[in-house]
């Protein structure tokens, strides 16, 4: 019975929406988290052939007249088409930590998931600016994210601070990281800010507060032209760094709660339709008992 499958698709889709909402609510306090949302569309319709019944002799000609084209379109339910992240900026929280950075504008920190960088653009990005100095397996000290991934500079290299006085590390508003070595303050590197074209289609959440860059299929544009590191001249266009601030999650709990209630009621309606279809099938089975 097709009614059963239509309603089942409704339940499955609303369940996915509730999954996404609960993920958003669980991450409502995660630094740099971007809320996700789902899109729905209805499934293809099948067209049943029909005869256009003509009124018989003596009958009122307008009694049987139909107003839509001949044929009966019957739907098949609903499907999920897209899971998209909302890349609006979250609110800023002041922490006064010297290594906490928040980006104002449309750019991202570059992060290396392995190695120390070979000069090409990094494969992962994040908005989470809660950094610390940590040691990797080789004993060198790098600027790292919470999970131990190395933050890159403008050239995609990890920022190596081995040998510097780690208490003296300072980052200024354009991302320049400086530290004291042998009594002299020196510039170590520039924390890289990367402008990503089309974040909604090229950045996919990869866990650990990271977004993986996904070049789109069929598109031959090379990463270099889509991402470019911010130099001093074009930092006005794509943003600047605030030291001592963290960007909070952009999840709005009010809209998430109302979406949750709506999805829950829609799921209940579909489950009632499943029960009714089930009862009808039971009746049909008992026709000849």
């Amino acid at each position, binding site marked *: *019975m*097709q*009614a*059963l499958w*239509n309603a089942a698709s*409704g339940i499955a889709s*609303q369940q996915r929406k509730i999954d996404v909402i609960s993920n958003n609510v669980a991450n409502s306090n995660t630094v740099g988290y971007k809320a996700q*949302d789902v*899109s*729905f*569309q*209805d*499934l*293809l*319709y099948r*067209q049943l052939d029909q005869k256009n*019944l003509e009124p*018989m002799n003596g009958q009122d000609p307008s009694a*049987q007249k*139909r*107003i*839509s*084209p001949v*044929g*009966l*379109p*019957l*739907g*098949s*339910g*609903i499907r999920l*088409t*897209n899971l*998209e992240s*909302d890349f*609006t900026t979250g609110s800023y929280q002041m922490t006064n930590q010297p290594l906490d950075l928040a980006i104002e504008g449309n750019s991202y920190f570059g992060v290396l998931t392995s190695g120390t960088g070979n000069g090409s653009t990094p494969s992962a990005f994040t908005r989470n600016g809660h950094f610390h100095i940590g040691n990797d397996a080789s004993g060198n000290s790098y600027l790292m994210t919470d999970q131990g991934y190395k933050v890159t500079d403008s050239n995609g290299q990890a920022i190596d601070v081995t040998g510097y006085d780690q208490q003296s590390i300072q980052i200024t508003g354009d991302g320049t990281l400086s530290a004291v070595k042998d009594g002299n303050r020196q510039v170590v590197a520039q924390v890289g800010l990367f402008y990503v074209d*089309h974040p*909604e*289609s*090229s950045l996919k959440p990869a866990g650990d507060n990271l977004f993986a860059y996904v070049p*789109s299929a069929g*598109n031959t*544009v090379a990463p270099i032209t889509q991402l470019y590191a911010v130099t001093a001249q074009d930092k006005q266009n794509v943003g600047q760094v605030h030291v001592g601030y963290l960007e909070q999650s952009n999840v709005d709990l009010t809209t998430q709660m109302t979406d949750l209630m*709506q999805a829950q*009621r*829609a799921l209940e*309606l*579909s489950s*009632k*339709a*499943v029960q*009714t*279809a089930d*009862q*009808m099938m039971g*009746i*049909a089975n*008992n*026709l*000849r008992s």
Partner: protein
Amino acid sequence: MIRGLYTAASGMLANERMQEIVSNNLSNVNTPGYKQQDGELMSFPEQLLYRIQYGGGLDVNAAAPNAKLGTMGTGVWLQESLSRFSEGMIQKSDQPYDYAIIDATQNSTNGQVPASFFAVYDPGKAGALLTRTGHFERNTDNLLGTSSGQRLLAVDDKGQPVVNSGMQVQDDGTLKAVVVDANGKPTQKPFVDANGRAIQVKDNVSVVDVADANQLVPYGNNGYLSNQATLRPGTAEVRHGFIEGSNVDPTQSMVTMMNVMRSYEANSKVIHTVDSTTDKAVNEIGKVS
């Protein structure tokens, strides 16, 4: 055989189709731009009953013609499934490319329902597909499209959608209508009609009107198929930053579902009764114990 069996079976089949339509509506209660479908039941053509009189025969000009008893119905069928094009609930949206169609006051002349739609291009169908769902996303070429990848088409000054066009987001955030090639990539070519003359195309998200919305056939992916010749310049307002929700009425759908369920049950009772009557006629009449 006994006529009542087929009449009741037609009732059950029509109710089964009706349940399919209702459960499709309920599973799409949250889909933006979805229009509720209403199934229209129609009775089968009626048969004329005669009572054969002695001496009459079937000749109506005889001295004692057969008495006309009247007409008898022979069943019911689901004649058509009409989409109801009333306005869904307009909600504010934070997505960057959400548009809602605010219908102009409906002028229903000759029983025809005018309605406005966005025109999108689906690769599976030649010509434009019409949709009410105003949720668009940018693809990697900066062209606007629906969440399943159908390209939004530009509308020319005569109100016809241009099939080889696309709406491109410029660097400053405004929209511009561009000509696309056979692969869907934007080009710099000027807009020309079939004879090569230049045509004017609007640079904002525009809608087209359909003279009779009852002639539209639902296709799936939130789209409707229409005969291109019936498209007219759009009269509705398009509002940016809002999205039109589904117009499904859950209360009415639940009541319809209860009605369908009990009607199905009642028809099955008729079949049971006819079955037991036939049972008596076959097994018990004339039985010599």
